[in-house]
């Protein structure tokens, strides 16, 4: 490589069950019977932290996993069932000290008031390492778990039609409102609202607590939050996006977007589209990360990785496909690819280990040292908060700023 030091890239790992390959649970290294224990998740996150990763995300959902997008598949040969991701993250927080913890939160049926205080609390229990990944659910069978709304059947094909795009727009508009409420609630307490003024007997200065008065199509929320402003001020908001409508949400409302480019041209086009939306949203001077998502099969030599993938595919009964590019090879090859993709404007990567028990350690013990040798990844944690690791400043409180200029 060249002698000029490349700009460091950011690395996250997406944790989902025993890994992203549907047959991953059958690997000897997998621990499928431990999936519903804290120790399982604690071990994975400890490994990620040993690798100095920026953060881990935890997948979640309001229904059983399925190999179909819009409905259950009735299969019993894959991992089914999962614990609430926010609670897993909270359970792990006191056991770790630097790594960011980013649970998935479904915005469609849940209460933004509850989630705002849950993530604020995650930020307290992790002393500033919380984030969330906002995901929506358009699946009719998940709506039936709540019984408050009815959704039409949905499939990936139907989403590509005009009506499908319109429907997607509505869901994403709701997600945007959701994020807005969550963010306003985090700011609804100014940092110095707690005064403990013995002379006047006042615990808080109520002029520093703010109603958010949000009124939207799906919900109205008065505020303020019951939880004081979290340590990071604004925990890190992220979401996954595959096309224009979700790119817009990434650009307008998040700190980190996960995208799924299949080659460098694709990556360049996605980055350009999101940056343009960012400009339109008036956020051009704000730091917005765009992370590439990749599924990884990592081994010391390529043939072993390929053979492992084929073995898993044979167990699953079909070749593994994914919304994200699937990488199969060595840590050095992956480092080459990440640097090549980084040159298109991606600022980091969220790797999805095909087999958590194998590919996560391969990332932390293989890929990370390789990137470190190239000067492309940190040698030690340089900050105590997730925002700090991502180079995001602690933001001013929107209400404090308003009060100051009033």
């Amino acid at each position, binding site marked *: 490589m060249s002698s000029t030091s490349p700009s460091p890239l950011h690395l996250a790992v997406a944790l989902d069950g025993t890994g992203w390959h549907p047959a991953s649970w059958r690997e000897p290294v997998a621990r499928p019977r431990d999936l519903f224990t804290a120790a399982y998740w604690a071990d994975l996150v400890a490994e990620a932290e040993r690798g100095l990763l920026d953060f881990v995300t935890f997948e979640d959902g309001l229904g059983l996993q399925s190999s179909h997008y819009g409905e259950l598949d009735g299969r019993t040969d894959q991992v089914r069932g999962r614990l609430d991701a926010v609670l897993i993250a909270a359970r792990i927080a006191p056991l770790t000290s630097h790594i960011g913890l980013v649970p998935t939160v479904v915005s469609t049926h849940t209460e933004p008031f509850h989630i705002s205080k849950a993530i604020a*609390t995650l930020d307290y229990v992790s002393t500033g390492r919380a984030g969330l990944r906002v995901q929506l659910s358009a699946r009719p069978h998940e709506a039936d778990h709540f019984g408050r709304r009815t959704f039409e059947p949905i499939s990936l094909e139907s989403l590509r039609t005009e009506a499908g795009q319109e429907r997607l727009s509505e869901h994403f508009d709701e997600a945007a409102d959701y994020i807005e409420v969550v963010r306003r609630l985090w700011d609804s307490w100014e940092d110095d609202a707690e005064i403990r003024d013995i002379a006047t007997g006042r615990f*808080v200065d109520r002029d520093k607590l703010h109603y958010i008065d949000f009124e939207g199509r799906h919900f109205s929320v008065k505020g303020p939050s019951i939880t004081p402003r979290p340590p990071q001020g604004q925990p890190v908001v992220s979401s996954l996006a595959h096309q224009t409508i979700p790119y817009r949400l990434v650009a307008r409302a998040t700190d980190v977007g996960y995208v799924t480019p299949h080659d460098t041209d694709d990556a360049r086009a996605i980055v350009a589209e999101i940056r343009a939306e960012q400009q339109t949203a008036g956020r051009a001077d704000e730091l917005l990360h765009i992370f590439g998502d990749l599924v990884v099969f990592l081994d010391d030599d390529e043939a072993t990785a390929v053979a492992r993938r084929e073995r898993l595919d044979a167990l699953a009964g079909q070749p593994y496909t994914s919304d994200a590019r699937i990488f199969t090879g060595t840590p050095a090859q992956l480092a080459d690819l990440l640097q090549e993709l980084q040159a298109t404007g991606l600022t980091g990567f969220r790797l999805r280990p095909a087999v958590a028990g194998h590919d996560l350690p391969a990332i932390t013990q293989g890929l990370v040292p390789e990137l470190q040798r190239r000067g492309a990844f940190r040698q030690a944690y340089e900050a105590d908060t997730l925002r700090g690791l991502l180079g995001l400043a602690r933001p001013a409180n929107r209400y404090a700023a308003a009060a100051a200029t009033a």
Partner: protein
Amino acid sequence: MSKPLKQIHLAAHFPGVNNTTVWSDPAAGSHIEFSSFAKFARTAERAKFDFLFLAEGLRLREQGGKIYDLDVVGRPDTFTILAALAAVTEHLGLTGTINSTFNEPYEVARQFASLDHLSDGRAAWNVVTSWDAFTGENFRRGGFLPQDERYSRAKEFLATTQELFDSWHGDEVVADRASGTFLSDAKAGAFVHQGQHFDIQGQFNVPRSPQGRPVIFQAGDSDEGREFAASSADAIFSRYSTLGEGQAFYTDVKSRLAKYGRRSDQLLILPAATFVLGDTDAEAEDLAKEVRRQQVSGATAIKHLEFVWNRDLSSYDPDGPLPDVDPDVSENHISKGRAQVRMYRDPLATAREWRERAEANGWSIRDLVIETGNRQAFIGSPSTVAKTINDFVQADASDGFILVPHITPTGLDPFADKVVPLLQEQGVFRTEYEGPTLRDHLGLAHPDDVREERAAS
């Protein structure tokens, strides 16, 4: 033959958002930093307490149209803080208050089942209901639940979550690598619930948790609330911490169990109780008086008087006499977001009585509020307090107590260090935990065993 001594159950209520908590004391720490919660939980576990208890309020309280600023304000999300506490404790039960009005059964069931898994069987749920539009302004559903429907909704909410907890039997996750069978049953978690308040169906996505279901607490005191507890709760968080009232409540609630086919030991009565310890009883009395004065500042006294007067009294001097003006007996509009104000059913009579007492004793407004407020439940030397608690439990005034210290987070330490060893010496409190789960500590059977027992009888 004398009956065997009852074992006492003890729990610790994290000091909260009310004037019991003395935030002005130099020893008072943070109410939001995790270190405070961890310290408090570790003390409770060191003392072999049954569980830690967290209250909840989903909107900041207001008085006179403004956010109430004299008490501790601000608290964490209940589920999230309990999950984090599971990481710093091994045995302590984790009881969270969760409202059945501003949540949905599927989500709450997921959260409690997850908490139970992540704590290896230590989760408990204090089911509360509310109906006020004031709190509803923070939520999707708003605040339209008529008051008389709150128990019917709460009952159905709880029954629905039980159906969800029971939708997995515990043997579905086989994860057999050789045959490639992860689940033994494709319909694991299947449920259908059609009722007045909830019409839901599908498949629940959290496998059965170690306790089967979380332990259920109930806190309501009305006739309906007592009936609800007798039919469906494992424990009651009651408000009666005096001997006479405690015994009356205990007898009443336990007598309601038979008609639901339940035994008297299947529902525990655990009142909230404050305490003040001193080296001697006299020293404790002095200290208790001082604490009551700390709990009621002049500003707090005026605000408490407003609960009864239902009007703005900010122009009155807390060190002066009571107002001449009578309470406003129209609909409550002064205080929002707290239950306490409903306790004064006849404000005119209360005001008249208070004026007479204040005049007779030469009390100022602040003196009166202190004197008419609650005394701490247990005041005395460690041996006096240990004896009193034991006497109450053996006399069936309760099965134990949920202690509410007035200092965060160290207020529990003197009790843990000085009273618990005395109870242990008397053989009425555990020296080691009975088992890993909260059900074990509380002597409650696993729901599967209860089912078998009923089937066999």
